[in-house]
């Protein structure tokens, strides 16, 4: 895989939605880039438009304004040059694990025997070869998501777009998946745009992190992760990691309050200062 390609550039991106006749701005003049072979995370409060932004890069939705390019060419619709890993399990339930992985190759017109060899090689790397003939419904959540990653990688894309891929997993499975992903990235060195709301996940995996504001989503900050490669789980205990965690938490807390501000004031609360004594909530209510 060439490390020369895989440059994502986003300039002055605006994305508007029409909801109930009103135009809602989801993403507002966002500019960012992912260098070839770089792992970049996009983090922000829920509803900030980070998934919308990724969907635009993937080509699933159209931008309302701005420039979106991959290696200098404008992005127009989805394509196998950008592998996508979704938040929900997106495996085809009617295909076995191997057929799912082969799907992209089949679309490229690769011969059946070659498809099978490539799919089995990739499944072997991900420790999934024993499950090649299973259907997705027979797999655990972590396994499904690993198959999803393998499937996205099978066509050899320059870029991997990941939309909160581990969001639905329990925390133990999640940390295992993060280690698997960072090991895979270390080997493949492709460009990754990773969407998450988990700060530790973003720091552990990324070279660079963009923090987004509440809706309409704008880039609030861009931070370089000072940790060396390859990443190991122990690095999460280093002072650099904790310092970074603290500063991103602070940035995000402001935004989360901004995002929830309207909801909270509508509920009649002036901040969250309700005091609950030993009598419990029932007493207060």
């Amino acid at each position, binding site marked *: 895989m060439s490390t020369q390609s895989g440059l994502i550039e986003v300039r002055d991106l605006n994305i508007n939605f029409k909801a109930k006749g009103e135009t809602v701005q989801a993403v507002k003049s966002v500019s960012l880039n992912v260098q070839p072979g770089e792992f970049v995370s996009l983090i922000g409060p829920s509803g900030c438009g980070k998934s919308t932004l990724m969907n635009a890069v993937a*080509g699933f939705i159209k931008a309302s304004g701005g420039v979106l390019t991959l290696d200098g060419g404008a992005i127009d619709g*989805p394509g196998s040059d950008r592998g996508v890993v*979704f938040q929900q399990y997106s495996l085809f339930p009617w295909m076995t694990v191997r057929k799912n992985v082969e799907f992209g190759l089949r*679309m490229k017109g690769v011969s059946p025997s070659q498809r099978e060899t490539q799919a089995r090689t990739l499944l072997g790397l991900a*420790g999934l070869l*024993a499950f090649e003939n299973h259907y997705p419904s*027979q797999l655990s959540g972590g396994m499904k998501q690993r198959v999803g990653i393998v499937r*996205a990688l099978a066509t050899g894309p320059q870029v991997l777009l990941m939309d909160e891929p581990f969001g639905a997993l329990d925390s133990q499975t999640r940390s295992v998946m993060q280690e698997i992903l960072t090991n895979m990235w270390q080997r493949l060195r492709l460009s990754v745009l990773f969407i998450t709301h988990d700060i530790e996940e973003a720091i552990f995996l990324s070279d660079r992190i963009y923090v987004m504001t509440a809706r309409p989503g704008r880039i609030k900050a861009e931070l370089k992760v000072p940790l060396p490669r390859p990443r190991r789980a122990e690095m999460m205990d280093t002072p650099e990691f904790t310092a970074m965690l603290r500063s991103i938490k602070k940035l995000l807390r402001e935004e989360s309050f901004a995002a929830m501000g309207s909801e909270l004031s509508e509920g009649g609360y002036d901040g969250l200062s309700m005091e609950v004594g030993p009598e419990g909530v029932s007493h207060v209510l």
Partner: protein
Amino acid sequence: MALTDRHPMESPPAAAPSHPLPRKPVRQPRLSAIEGGQPAAGAPRPFRPKEWLESAPGSWMLGALSIAIVLLAWYLLTVYRVDFYVRFGNIPTPVEVWHSIVGVSHSSRFLTDIGISLRRVLLGFLGATVTGTLIGILVGRYRIFRSLTMPAMEVFRPIPAIAWVPMAIMLWPSNEVSIVFITFIGAFFPILINTIHGVEQIDEVLFRAAYSLGAKEKDVILYVVIPGALQHIFAGLSIGMGVAWVSLIAAEMISGQFGIGYFTWEAYSLISYPDIALGMITIGVLGLLCSKAINLCSQLVMPWMAAAAGARK
């Protein structure tokens, strides 16, 4: 089957040894409720009637019992010619019907009737399957096609297939074709509606996944839309087959010269009452066989459904 002898459902094989990292344990099959609270293996177990009745031989016996009760009730009601608002005076006894079955099994006319009915139902049903799924996929997938076709369909949909009988006789050159047409109409709408629903409920993320893997529109139809809607399509086929039989029998009774529906109605006209019951039983058996055939097809065509059911255990 002895309860303690039950093998657990097969679980996925252990992880590939090459995999370096731990993972969630493979889900263990849960024991079913009746297996709960068993004494340790080897200890003598007291006989519990409820447990035995819930086991396989027990449920077979209960099934046989339910049919025996029906036969017995039929026998008693007809032999004693019960007349209590419902009149069993002219109803044939099971023995008479049995004689009629034995008698008719030598008759080529009866087999011809069955053959003709089956041919009509299968032709109408196949026509409805092809057109219903095809139009259903187009309607479910393309909004323009939906706007173009559905208003016209909605006009015809509430009209029962049987109401088409006079019109069908005028429309088609022969009686045979008009009966097939009525069968077709009966099966068409359930298949169409279920196919549309099946296409609509496919998760959007699967389309996105397919496109991002380089799929073109024809690939999406072939590998996402059709398999994704298949479960609903088969539900439609099942209902459609039932309605096809209803429509066929009614059409044969009204306008036929052959067929099992005609046979049943003719038996009434000729006052050969055992043959009425024979006709009804035959229709029931044929309907059951057709519905089993569809079930079998659905299992062959959708092996992943069995896998999903196994995983839920």
